């Protein structure tokens, strides 16, 4: 990973073709940045612009710079040079392959050693209830299994300096663990979310409305306090869910 890393978003236009209010945003190494806004407002579109390192050639007209410069053509397309890993909402596998075959092929496409496959499966199984085996066909994985497999795949195989996450909370996996795993060391993490815990874990959040970046909010000290309180509530909810899943009776009020 390069020592310096900045990601710059240069604003384009909203859904009506009007220039968006936020014209420039720079994100540095180690930062988690949130994207918030109503459903259908254009959050995923912003993620897609970053994933393809848009150069004014997408419908939004945005440009993405890496270390202040326009990325070259190979950085945009060759998975071995790709700077961006994306965990998208699209989690249903269409590939008729086993988990192990798929991961080996993906490791090859990213120029990584095939030995990483076991590590991906092991890590995925720490995030989900039902264990995944290397011989399982991708098409029969549950939603939670698929998500945890893709999360582990990004952490181990894709291992790009910029990680984009689209709504991790909808997946029935341990979201905070997943986020920490993906954030790794010194990465830029961009996370689309409706979840207050994840949104407030970010140091800043971009507000999207009608396809435009309308505001950037820096998470305040007060919001950080709120975040740690709701994290406790969230963990409690999670433990209740596990209790119920195990077929046990919920007895005490925490």
């Amino acid at each position, binding site marked *: 990973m390069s020592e310096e890393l900045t990601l710059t978003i240069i604003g384009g236009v909203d859904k009506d073709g009007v220039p968006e209010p936020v014209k420039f945003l720079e994100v540095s190494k180690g930062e988690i940045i949130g994207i918030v806004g109503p459903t259908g407002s254009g959050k995923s579109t912003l993620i897609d612009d970053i994933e*393809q390192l848009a150069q004014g050639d*997408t419908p939004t007209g945005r440009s993405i710079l890496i270390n202040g410069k326009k990325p070259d053509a190979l950085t945009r*397309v060759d998975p071995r040079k790709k700077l961006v890993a994306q965990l998208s909402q*699209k989690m249903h596998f269409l590939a008729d392959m086993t988990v192990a075959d*798929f991961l080996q*092929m993906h490791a090859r*496409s990213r120029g990584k050693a095939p030995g990483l496959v076991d590590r991906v499966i092991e890590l995925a199984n720490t995030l989900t209830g039902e264990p995944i085996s290397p011989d399982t066909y991708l098409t029969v994985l549950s939603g939670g299994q698929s998500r945890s497999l893709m999360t582990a795949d990004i952490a181990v195989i894709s291992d790009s300096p910029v990680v984009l996450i689209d709504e991790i909370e909808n997946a029935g996996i341990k979201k905070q663990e997943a986020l920490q795993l993906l954030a790794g060391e010194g990465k830029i993490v961009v996370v689309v979310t409706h979840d207050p815990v994840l949104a407030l874990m970010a140091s800043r959040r971009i507000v999207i409305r009608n396809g435009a970046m309308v505001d950037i909010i820096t998470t305040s000290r007060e919001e950080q306090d709120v975040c740690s309180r709701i994290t406790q509530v969230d963990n409690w909810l999670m433990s209740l869910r596990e209790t119920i899943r195990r077929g046990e009776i919920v007895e005490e009020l925490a």
Partner: protein
Amino acid sequence: MKLVVLAGTPGSGKTSVLLHTIRTLVKSGKRPAVVKVDCLWTDDDQRFGKLGIPVHVGLAKDMCPDHFTIYNTDAMLDWGASNNADIVLNETAGLCLRCAPYPDECMAICVIDVTTGPNTPLKVGPLLTTADIVVMTKGDLVSQAEREVFRERVLDVNPSCMIIESNGLTGKGAFELAELISEGPEVRDNMVLRYNPPLAICSLCTGETRVAHKHHMGVLRQLDGFMEYRGE
């Protein structure tokens, strides 16, 4: 004059890719014209017609659509020239995956749908393996990992191709594709096919409709792979 031959399985998004690319070509001052070859029916000429460029439809009917395309290539180029075009874009029907209707001096583009799964590149044959550019469509419907695995499989069978990830809804990829087309080769006389068409000298070609081995003559391949000649 430049010739672009665009092939791909039905429903892969050939027409959508082409519509976006034509808009970009026109914007950059090119004069494209489209020949759409189909088997029985098409209304794609209306979609192309809205772009205000010359459009011609060829229906292969009871002929093989790829063979039809191959022996009509010179007629397509003449038609393009008489309509003052500088690029003829030929969208083929391409069905049986055994032929590849690409002449040597053209820009050969294969459009392939990512949602058909990463084994598809192994099945498509010369349509994919002899293309200059491979356009991967519908990538927004799968994960990034699956797109990358698909891409790796394409490179396994065609290591020297350029791959463009395209989206027929947003027009992603059209800009790059238009640029590559503009840099493509000029056509010349005496073009030859990149890949030989299949052996087609059995009695089915002459109208035999009865099913079963005993009714057929010519060069036949049996289920176990054995090839024989039956006849006089």
